[in-house]
């Protein structure tokens, strides 16, 4: 159903719009799109990275959160021209080579994801937090995630997941969590 997966980073060039270049999850990208196109839409439509979600289009829900040049941003509020030359990380870039990132591992085992729609943004915000505060207090976790709305969990198990991930950071990732195929039998 999805158009091709994580391999195609070059959107079809169009002479009308000048090229805008940046890297996403370590790979160089070039897009020829209107400079006001939202980074969110460029990620989803032009680069086919649909992990980043749109929940509100107003910068309120955080489900579009990505990391840009080391900062957490709401990609629905970034005109792609302002991403020129930037290094962007999306949820697709979080996992390690063959294993889940400690945060993903923790969310999996501690009920951090229910319906999953807020999860990519939540992981980005949590990764941003742990990147500069490796052992956050509950108050720090609450503040770091305040911009990511979750309607399913009531946040409690998300806090637990972040604490678990913080505790696990110095530990080797579990070898059990080899990335699996989707569970639906088709």
């Amino acid at each position: 159903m999805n158009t091709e997966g994580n391999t195609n980073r070059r959107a079809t060039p169009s002479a009308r719009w000048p090229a805008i270049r940046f890297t996403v999850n370590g790979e160089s990208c070039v897009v020829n799109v209107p400079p006001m196109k939202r980074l969110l839409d460029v990620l989803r439509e032009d680069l086919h990275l649909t992990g980043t979600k749109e929940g509100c289009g107003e910068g309120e829900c955080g489900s579009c959160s990505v990391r840009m040049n080391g900062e957490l941003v709401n990609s629905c509020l970034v005109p792609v021209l302002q991403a020129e030359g930037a290094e962007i990380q999306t949820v697709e870039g979080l996992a390690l080579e063959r294993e889940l990132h400690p945060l993903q591992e923790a969310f999996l085992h501690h009920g951090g994801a229910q319906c999953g729609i807020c999860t990519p943004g939540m992981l980005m915000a949590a990764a941003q937090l742990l990147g500069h505060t490796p052992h956050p207090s509950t108050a720090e976790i609450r503040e770091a995630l305040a911009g990511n709305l979750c309607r399913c969990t009531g946040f409690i198990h998300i806090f637990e997941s972040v604490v678990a991930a913080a505790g696990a950071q110095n530990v080797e990732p579990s070898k059990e969590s080899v990335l699996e195929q989707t569970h639906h039998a088709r």
Partner: protein
Amino acid sequence: MSTHATTRIVGAPVPRKEGVDKLLGRASYVDDMERKGMWHGATVRSSIPRGLIRSIAFDRRIDWSEFTIVTAADIPGENCIQLIVADQPCLADGKVNHCEEPIVLLAHPDKHKLRQAFGAVEIEYEPLQPIFTMEESERQNVVVWGADNLLKSFLLEKGDVDSVWGRAAHIIEGEYRTGAQEHLYIENQGMIAEYSAESGVTVWGSLQCPYYVFNALRSVFDLPEDKVRVIQTETGGAFGGKEDYPSTLACHAALLAMKSGHPVKMVYDRMEDLAATTKRHPSRVRHRTALDRDGKLLAMEIDLATDGGAYSTLSSVVLSRATLHSTGPYLCPNVRVRSRSWATNNVPYGAFRGFGAPQAIFAMERHMDEIAAVLGIDPVELRRNNFLHEGDTNATEQLMREPMILDQLLDRALKESHYYAKRAQFARENRTSPVKRGLGLAAFYHGSGFTGSGEVYLNSLAGIDVTPDGKVRVLASNTEFGQGTNTVLTQIATEALGVDYSDVTMASPDTGVVPNSGPTVASRTSMVVGRIIERASLQLLALLREHAGLGASHTREDFFAACERYRAAHGEVASMCRYEPPPGIVWDDERYHGEAYGAYAWAIYVAQVAVDTVTYSAEVEDFWAVQEAGRVIHPVLAAGQIEGGIAQGIGFALYEKVVWQDGRMANNQMTNYIMPTAEDVPPIHVYFEQIPFRHGGFGAKGIGELPHDGPAPAILNAIRDGTGVSFRAIPLLPEDLYAGLARNQPVEEPAVR
């Protein structure tokens, strides 16, 4: 039946079945999907709440030849989305009855051109007098639905209420109100539809009930079963908001697909989703209660009304559940509940977690605290002295046959919350502190599964099969939308079959693949469908033992080997079962009498709330939730359901207000429809007492809606405890608290400190 046996997988915190995909950002929600040659669709909606459509004009600045335009005239079958009553059109035809009612559909390959064209459709109306409140509807001066505006009514009676008033020591009255509430699932509603003469209609989308959508499409398109197919995509939250509305959206997308000859995607943006889709029914509940000198309930007379909006949708069933949850977990010999759902020109209300119970329970549990105050009794003891016990009959004269442990739950809640010690501490501190703290509680139940004979009527079919490559598939139309369907049902099959958790998968939620096991609503999945899956699994083992040499005890390798032997002889390996009602379920729909629900979950919730008298804002500081909901199939998922439901209940009580202006939601953006953030939720302490229910999947009872029933009354009871002021309507915003706490005090004078 292994509800008491030691289990490996049931009761264990196994990883969420589809969890890895969700965490990797690989899960496919409807807006992540594309079909080749796909167009986009948009809906032109009514800008007035009631009136006749005089004309529809298409501005000539747009080249309409590029567009597909659909109106009611294009509907091949019935122009009706029927849930219960056939009153709601798929597209308005000549008249509109609410703001945002869909009138014209447009499709175009370019989203931006579509947006431009959207603004170029000019509709002229002849407005008619609209009504927006239950009270206006009740007066029947303006009739907007049927002959009398009355969508539905019930009368539930037990004993002889009228004989009591004359002799009661105490009679206490109260009126309680709840407002509309928006589901605010983080994924907006969306569908993709395709049409061809050969295959008919296929839709993919965010939904709870594939067969509801299936039936709606069959009716609107006049197509046979084999020409309609509905597939659920990964769904980002639902809470009842995707129980009814997706049928309308699917029909819209499919109409455009049919007429345009292209697949069509329709995904709402947040502003449209908020303004146009269903919300929780607002309610007004009036209690009149008689008690004896000792605080024992003698009679309850309840008048319960809901606002159904412009069309019935599910108003009758919401009213039913509200009625059956209106009298609380109390023994009362004389009861009369009159309930009515009234039509207005508001956007139609629909299903939302709790489904009438949160509204009814808010009133009952607030009223208990009001009674306690009038009688000068401890609100805890008032409840305890009136609790239902095993052997009692409830308001519908259902004999409570299952073990009842409300006393134990109450004791636990009091202990864990340090209830009395804290109340005493707050009473001292409140004298001098500008922040007033209090504790409040709520005692309640939630009936699991469909009411009365509803499950019999649904006649759910579900089961399992085993694929040639050694995977067990659960075959059910019940869907995952975060609450754990995939995990719980595969856990149950795993346990019953004696295989590994990784051997079992959910078959695709596709009406072309799975049978109709009923909708994913009413907290029925683990209990009702889980039990069917359990039975189907045991049935398969019995077949394998009888026909394929499977031994009395087996390893998973033995199981799969036996399956292959069975397949060689019979061609496929499958086991299906139909719902079997527990014995003794007798329900009289006319008199509203008998076994309303096969099982109930019971709970006591305690809220600690702080009210700041500088800003008049109330915040929940701490929360304890003690419940008995049968066997807990997955401890992390179950706790997650409770916490999520409580957070929504906190929103319902203190934050979430739908601001209506002339029948339209004025605050239809996330910036001003306010749900609690990670900084607003209190610590939530969850405790389960488990009494396995014989007739539920591995002993489970319903759990999903229970947690939304208790928070609002517990919170307002806590506010009463802390401030001494009684509030009887929610949402209770600071502006309302201010009105109750300080308005009578001249603004020029500061509060003494």
